[in-house]
């Protein structure tokens, strides 16, 4: 299990304890936790509607792949620590990570 903190659009933070052995992506976990994210394309890094900004722990995450980079490039409000939640697999490296939801709401 790994513990992360999610900050919603209103600035409200919630701690989540997540399993690392189920192959889940951060997008899937956020949806399952009833956050209103669209995740239109279902996790193919094709729509950028699961955009998050990693406030703490960004340096421990795997590097961006090309499709993720491409999609983030289409977002006017992307920052250097922006990621697509669908491309981040829940792993032990995420311990203590803080992410802020950036995507338009469902």
């Amino acid at each position, binding site marked *: 299990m790994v513990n992360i903190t999610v900050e919603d659009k209103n600035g409200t933070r919630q701690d989540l304890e997540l399993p690392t052995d189920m192959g889940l992506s951060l997008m899937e976990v956020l949806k399952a936790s009833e956050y*209103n994210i*669209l995740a*239109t*394309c*279902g996790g*193919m890094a*094709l*729509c*950028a*509607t699961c955009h998050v900004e990693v406030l703490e722990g960004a340096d421990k995450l795997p590097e961006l792949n*090309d499709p993720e*980079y*491409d*999609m983030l*490039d*289409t*977002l*006017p*409000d*992307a920052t250097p620590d922006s990621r697509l939640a669908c491309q981040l697999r829940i792993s032990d490296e995420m311990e203590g990570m803080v992410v802020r939801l950036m995507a*338009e709401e*469902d």
Partner: protein
Amino acid sequence: MKETDICIIGAGPVGLFAVFEAGLLKMRCHLIDALPQVGGQLSEIYPQKPIYDIPGSPGVLAQDHVNNLLTQIEPFSPTYSLGERVEAVEKLEDGSFITTTNEGTKVASKVVVIAGGLGSFEPRKPAIQNLEDFENGKGVTYMVKDPEMFRDKDIILAGGGDSALDWTIHLAEIAKSLTLVHRNETFRGAPDSAEQVFNMANEGKINLVLKSNIVKIGGNATLEEVNIADHNKEETVHKADYLIPLFGLSPKLGPIANWGLNVDKNAIQVDTFDYSTNVPGIFAIGDINTYPGKLKLILCGFHEAALMAQSAFKYVYPEQKLSFKYTTVNGVQAF
């Protein structure tokens, strides 16, 4: 006024297959879609991705699947209004409907089927405060419909994808001046296009502003100037007749929310008996609907289309009795 039996809103895979199921029951269909081509998400977002869970089609490319559906529904001669967004669905006293698009197209039908997927794809807008004040012909536009309107104008484009690169190359020939603003130092669009854009900047044909973004726009009535901030947040003011932000498309439920249908979390509530909505004669199928156990799968949408057609028949042919026939027995009777 176009007249048809069923007006289908959304020409994605489920909307297209609904034409087939309706056609088997001798009902004609007109399809409307906000995108300029049929296929919905499959054609717009992932045409080259394989889909593995279409029954009988192992690993079919999304665009090939759309093409297959078009071939399948050809016998039923569907008609289309593409690149138009439905604004209103009006129910008449006799129970029939008039569907009106943003281009003023009107479709009269006995049944309306909403197969709208995630809603209509609309341009993603940058976070600039007074952007809306300059939309609708006042300088800010999200697509290039008629390049001639930019002749001898000062244009600012924003974005880093293929469409930003392509339009930069194209419009540079026409415009008086063209400035491309991009958040990054490099472009992830097609390398050939990126190289061409860098060459044009070196030759002084365009003004390339990298690691920057647009923070403010202004003007009296129409757009006159655009403030661009670099990565040190230093602002420069640029003269502009047009600003064209090109940041891709994102789906929006849009006007569907205002048609008096029961909506839950951006999806239309339906009765799983026939995928009817709370308004008699309006059905919702595919990703746009919701019911207990809903799965957003193309194959589920196909099933929903088949059941919808059975009920839609009662609205189109109220005097006739419906007898169920297999295509293996009856074949496909083209119109």
